[in-house]
């Protein structure tokens, strides 16, 4: 279908709107996309601290400090599957150790940062990062840490730690990072 526009003097300009009309004929029946399959993040979580620690020598960490927290908990970071907010077994082990440390230092307040990989739209990823931060927060709260000690912030896809556009980088970027004040 074409829409023609005649001008007073006889100039005519045809604007193609065919695409809209023809596409209307090929509307597909309602269909829900199945959830994406679990990816590497589901099974690799743990050993990768993804560069979020401050690099202090763990042997010399001041008790109650960020470096001490990372050394004692094993990691400040837990990872998530694609579009997932579930705390898997690897993440549980890390969060349990984080909770143990937080019980030892009851005056310390933390911020949990939630992040997403680059394969989501910007605003959706802000909400997804918020979900992940809250998922980690809820786990720590269930482990006995007062929720009032834990604040959350989402960075969506704005602050990746791994810069590639591949599964390995995405798995590192889908994360919640428990940040202890310096």
């Amino acid at each position, binding site marked *: 279908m074409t829409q023609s526009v005649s001008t007073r003097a006889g100039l005519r300009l045809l*604007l193609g709107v065919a695409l809209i009309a023809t596409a209307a004929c090929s509307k597909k029946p309602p269909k829900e996309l199945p959830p994406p399959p679990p990816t590497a993040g589901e099974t690799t979580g743990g050993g990768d601290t993804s560069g979020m620690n401050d690099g202090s020598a763990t042997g010399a960490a001041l008790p109650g400090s960020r470096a001490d927290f990372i050394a004692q908990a094993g990691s400040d970071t837990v990872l998530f599957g694609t579009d997932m907010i579930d705390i898997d077994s690897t993440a549980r082990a890390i969060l349990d150790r984080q909770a143990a440390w937080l019980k030892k230092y009851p005056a310390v307040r933390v911020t949990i940062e939630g992040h997403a990989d*680059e394969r989501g739209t*910007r605003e959706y990823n802000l909400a997804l990062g918020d979900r992940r931060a809250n998922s980690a927060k809820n786990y720590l709260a269930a482990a006995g840490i007062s929720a009032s000690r834990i604040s959350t912030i989402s960075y969506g896809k704005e602050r990746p730690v791994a810069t590639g556009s591949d599964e390995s980088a995405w798995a590192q970027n889908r994360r919640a990072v428990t940040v202890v004040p310096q």
Partner: protein
Amino acid sequence: MRSPLSLLATALIACAAAPADAQIRVDITGGIASPMPIAIPVMPTPATAATAAGDTAGLGAQVAQVVTNDLKNSGLFNPLPAGSLRPVAFTQVTAPDFPGWTSTGAQALVQGFVQANGDGTLTVGCYLYDVFAQSELTRQGFVVSPANWRRAAHKCADTVYTRLTGEGPYFDSRVVYVSETGPKTRRTKRLAIMDQDGANHRFLTNGQSIVLTPRFAPGQQTITYMSYTNNRPRVYVYDVGSGRQRLVVDQPNMTFSPRFSPDGRFIVFSMAVNGNTDIYRVSASGGTPQRLTTSPGIDSSASYSPDGARIVFESDRSGGQQLYVMNADGSNQQRISFGGGRYGTPVWSPRGDLIAFTKIGGGFRIGIMAPDGSGEKTLTNAWQDEGPTWSPNGRVIMFFRTGQGSGKADLWSVDLTGVNERRVPTPLDGSDPAWGPLLP
């Protein structure tokens, strides 16, 4: 700051009756474009005079260049190379040398003049002719301060575009977007504003805090956006005149995804509360937000219909992101996207007839569909195209394209055929464009 705008369309003396024997046309059917050949010679001046923006003779060349670029970028016109065009004397502006222009192959001819007025303003005259019919189609005159000479040129291009296409104007408009620079792990993001062609570029924020997703208020004197000011991601309103920003909703949760209502009275936005994100509405001047959605999923990216009666938004309540339409009070929520894959960032066209979105599946692509979900069409095909925004006439979409690996983003535009895709020039990288309405 720009000086207050005085842009007056002057009534140039009425034009001659138009004969109707010629049949010139531009066909864009089946995705094959054949742009109309058009000549836009340098606009002469009745008397060369100095202005704050250079002398009137030089401005005549610059105005013609801006008109040329606008029409070329629309994809509907093929301006003849400036160097090949014969000079036009001031006396010829209203009496074109039609036989001479016929031999160039141009089907339409834009002539004009630039004149300095005694009060310090400029008058830019703009005349459109049908070369083969040897007739005048329309004329417009614009009185501007010299600093606003580009606006007169955009108005002239809009006059030509609307007369020859029957579509609404869009060249005299601005874009607010996020200017980006720095490493992928730590991008610096600043609000910036510019004309739709990239001219008159200006930074609004200094980059100390991450800023995202700006949107103009209808009057374009304020911009709503999300900022990480003080490490608390929340929705703000920025006043373009004073440069001050104001928090919209003062409470501890993350607020984001803000958009003005078409009348400017409300801001619709998303708020994340304990991991659940819903859409709220608040008076643009602040106050208590009214909750519009209550699903346990992520509801965000709301966009009003141009009449303000309905809102399109995205929700993952059914699993993945899909598009929904509801009444402006939150009632009658209906899903409209049913194709394969997921859909995000819906934006209602200012014409009301279409909704643009980001199609997610493999990569990101820009697509359009009718507000009832019919007629879905994908317009772009790159690794990651995201965040559509409509031109004021609803015929062109601007978006941002992110590079695989590098994470560097830049601004692009595409028309509704999907054929005319162009990079929009920005001094640094760019994302989150929002195209404002026609300038007042």
